[in-house]
C-alpha cells in the first residue's frame, strides 16, 4: 500500500487543463487546412491529383475534411504553398457540408445541441461505441479520453457497455458489410431521442477504404449524423473539443 502511495506521488496529477487552458500540440501536427488559392498558378491540379482520397477541389481551392487523412501528399506535391495544415485541432462540425473548407469561406465549427436535446444530454451524455471496420486508431484515441490524462467523466460524458444505457451511438470505421446489421441493431436498441457521432474519416466517407466492395463509405448512408469528427485518426483534442461544443461547454 505504501508503495502505491509513493508511486502515486511520483506520478502526480497530470489531467489536461483543457478547456480552461489551451493545449499545446506538437509542432508538426496537421490540423485545420490553411488555403492560399492566390498562390496557385492557373489550372494547377497538382494537389488534387496526388490526394489519395479525392479530398481536394480546385477553382476554388477546397479541402473536404470529411475525406482528408491529413497526410503529407499534397504538401509534398505543391511547390506553391497553396495547401498547408495549421496547428488548430478544432475540426468537428455538426453538418457534413461544414467539413468542406473553402478559402475565404465562413468557418462553422460544431455548435450546441438544440434546447430540448441540450436539457436532456447537456450534463449527462452516454455513448455506446460500435466499431464497424475501424483500424483501432480512432478507437484508441477515443478510449484515451477516459484515462486520467483527459478524464472525460468530469464533463458528464461516458462510454457505456449497453446500448440500453446510452444516449447516442459512437461510430468508427467505414461500416463494413459484415458489421452493418450489428450496427443497425445497436442503434435500434438505444432509447430515443438519440444521437449519432461519426468519429474519423472512415466513418464519414470511408477513409482510405472508400468505394471498397465490402464497405459502405461511412455511416451517413444508414443513420442521421449529429456530430462529425474528422481526422485519420482524430486527435483526442479534436474529439473532446467537438463533444464539448456539442454539450455547450465551449461556445466561442
Amino acid at each position: 500500500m505504501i508503495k502505491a502511495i509513493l508511486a502515486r506521488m511520483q506520478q502526480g496529477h497530470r489531467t489536461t487543463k483543457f478547456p480552461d487552458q489551451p493545449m499545446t500540440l506538437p509542432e508538426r501536427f496537421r490540423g485545420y487546412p490553411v488555403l492560399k488559392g492566390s498562390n496557385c498558378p492557373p489550372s494547377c491540379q497538382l494537389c488534387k491529383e496526388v490526394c489519395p482520397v479525392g479530398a481536394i477541389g480546385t477553382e476554388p481551392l477546397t479541402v473536404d475534411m470529411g475525406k482528408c487523412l491529413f497526410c503529407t501528399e499534397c504538401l509534398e506535391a505543391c511547390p506553391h504553398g497553396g495547401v498547408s495544415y495549421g496547428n488548430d485541432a478544432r475540426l468537428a462540425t455538426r453538418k457534413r457540408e461544414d467539413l468542406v473548407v473553402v478559402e475565404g469561406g465562413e468557418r462553422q465549427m460544431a455548435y450546441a445541441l438544440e434546447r430540448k436535446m441540450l436539457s436532456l444530454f447537456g450534463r449527462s451524455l452516454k455513448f455506446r461505441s460500435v466499431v464497424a471496420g475501424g483500424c483501432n486508431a480512432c478507437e484508441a484515441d477515443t478510449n484515451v479520453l477516459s484515462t486520467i490524462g483527459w478524464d472525460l467523466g468530469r464533463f458528464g460524458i461516458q462510454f457505456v457497455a449497453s446500448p440500453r444505457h446510452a444516449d447516442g451511438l459512437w461510430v468508427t470505421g467505414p461500416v463494413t458489410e459484415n458489421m452493418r446489421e450489428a450496427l443497425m441493431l445497436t442503434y435500434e436498441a438505444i432509447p430515443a431521442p438519440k444521437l449519432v457521432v461519426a468519429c474519423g474519416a472512415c466513418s464519414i466517407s470511408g477513409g482510405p477504404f472508400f468505394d471498397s466492395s465490402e464497405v459502405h463509405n461511412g455511416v451517413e448512408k444508414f443513420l442521421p449524423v449529429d456530430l462529425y469528427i474528422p481526422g485519420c485518426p482524430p486527435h483526442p483534442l479534436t474529439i473532446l473539443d467537438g463533444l464539448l461544443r456539442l454539450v455547450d461547454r465551449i461556445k466561442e
Partner: protein
Amino acid sequence: MSATLCLTQNGNAIRRADIPLLSPDRFQENLVEALDSGWRVVSYFGVPEGGELFLHAVLSSKKEGTLGVVATSLEGKRSFPSLTPCAPQVHLFEREIAEEYGVTFEGHPWPKPVRFQGPLTSPGGPQHKPVPIGVMDFYRVEGSEIHEVAVGPVHAGIIEPGHFRFQCHGEEVLHLEISLGYQHRGLERRLVGKPSGLMLKQMETIAGDTTIGHTLCYAMVIEGLAGARVPARGHVIRGIAMELERLANHTGDLGAISGDVGYLPTASFCGRIRGDFLNLTAEICGSRFGRSLVVPGGVNFDLTSEMAAKLTERLRAAGKDLAGAVQLLWDTPSVMARLEGTGTVSDLVAAEIGLVGPAARACGLNRDIRRDHPFGIYSMSQIPVVTARTGDVYARTLVRWLEAEKSLEFIEEQLHQLPGVSVREPVGAPAPESLAVALTEGWRGEVCHVALTDHAGAISRYKVTDPSFHNWTGLSLALRGVQISDFPLCNKSFNLSYCGFDL
C-alpha cells in the same frame, strides 16, 4: 536441408521464374520435409493467374537466417490434400485459401469460414456471399450441465468486433471458438496495380495500432522490388518509430492487464504514459500513430539534434514513470496471484500452432524477426530478445515489460547517434515478374508482406499476414480449463488485432 526452395533474404526480391513450381504431391512432401527440419510457415496463399490457381508458401529458417519460397499449381482441380493434420501451423492459411478461392482441403479437421468474405478471384468484388456473417457450425460440447456463452460482435468497451462462443461447465471453459470477419474491408482486393499514395494509406490502417510495423513492411517490399536503397538516417528514424510503437502498445497492455485484475493504480498510470509515448511519435511526424512517417525509400520527416535531445529527455521521464507503475504489479501479491498460472499455453502447443511475437516468447519460443531476419537498423544495432518460460498471463506481462525496457534503451541510443544527412531516396518502378517478401517484428509479432508483380511491374497479388492471424488460436487454447471470468484478462494479455486478421 533437402527441401526444394528458392532462397531469399528479408526485404529482397526474386524472379518469379526462379521459384520452384512443384507438383501438388511433391509440394506437400517438400513442405513437410522443410517443417520437420525446422522451417516455419510465415505466409501461404493463393495466386490466381490465367484461370489457374497457384499456391505459394513462404518459409523462414531461424537457423539459416534465410527465407524460402516454393509454389505449386492446383492443375485445374478444386481440391487439395490438407497439411493441417501433420502441420497444424498451416490450419488457418488453408481455411483462408479455401474461402478465397473455393478450394477444398481434404482432411482439414476444422473447415470453417475465416472472414465470411466473397471469393477473391472476382476483381470487381464479391459475386455472392457464400455464408452470412457469423452463421457457422460452432463446436458444441453436449451434456446436461454444459452451457454455452455467446459474446459479440459488439463488445462492452470501445473494442473491435468479433464473436466468441464458450462451452462451459459451470465457470470452467471447456472450449472457446472465435469467429471473426466483422472487420473485413476487402483490403487485399484493393492492393493491386502500381504502388500509390492510396495503397500506402491502406497499409497504415491494416491494423491502425501497428502503422509503423505494416508500413515498414510495405516500404521494404516496394524497395526490394525496385532495388532501392534507404539512407542510414532513414533506417534509424524507422527503428525509433518502430520501438516507440512497441513501447506505447506494451504500456497500454500493461495498464489494461492491470485494469482487468482490478488493480487501478498501474492501470491509470499506464493509460496516461502510453499517451506520452504516442506524443513522442507525434513530435516526429505530427501523428500519434506514425501516419505519413514511413514511405518507400525512407521516411518523410527528419529529426534535428535539438529535437533528438528533447525527445530523449521526454523518453527518459516517461520511461521512469513506466518503471514505477509496472514495479507496483510485481510488488502486489493479489495481482501476481491473478496473473500466475492463468491462461497457460505450453511451448509445444505454441510451436505447433506457430505463435509469434511476445505471445510466443512468453512460452519460451525464442523467435524475433529483429534478430532472426534482421532488417534496417536492426542489421547494425542488435536488440536483445526476451523470453519467459511459463506461457501464462504473467509471462506475457513480464515479456512486455522487459521488451519495453529494451526499447527504451534502444531508442535512446539511436537518438544519440543519428547518422548521415538524407532520410529519403527516390524509389524507381518495381521490377516485373518478381516476388518480394518483407518481415518486420511489430509489437504484436511478426508482420509479413509478400508482393508479386506482373510483366508490367504492377502488383498482381499482395498478401498481408498480421501477427494476429497466427495468434488468435493461441488465445482460444489458453482458455481451456480457465474460469470464464478470466477471459478478459487472457484476451488482454494477447491483445490481438481484429482488423489485422480480417483485412
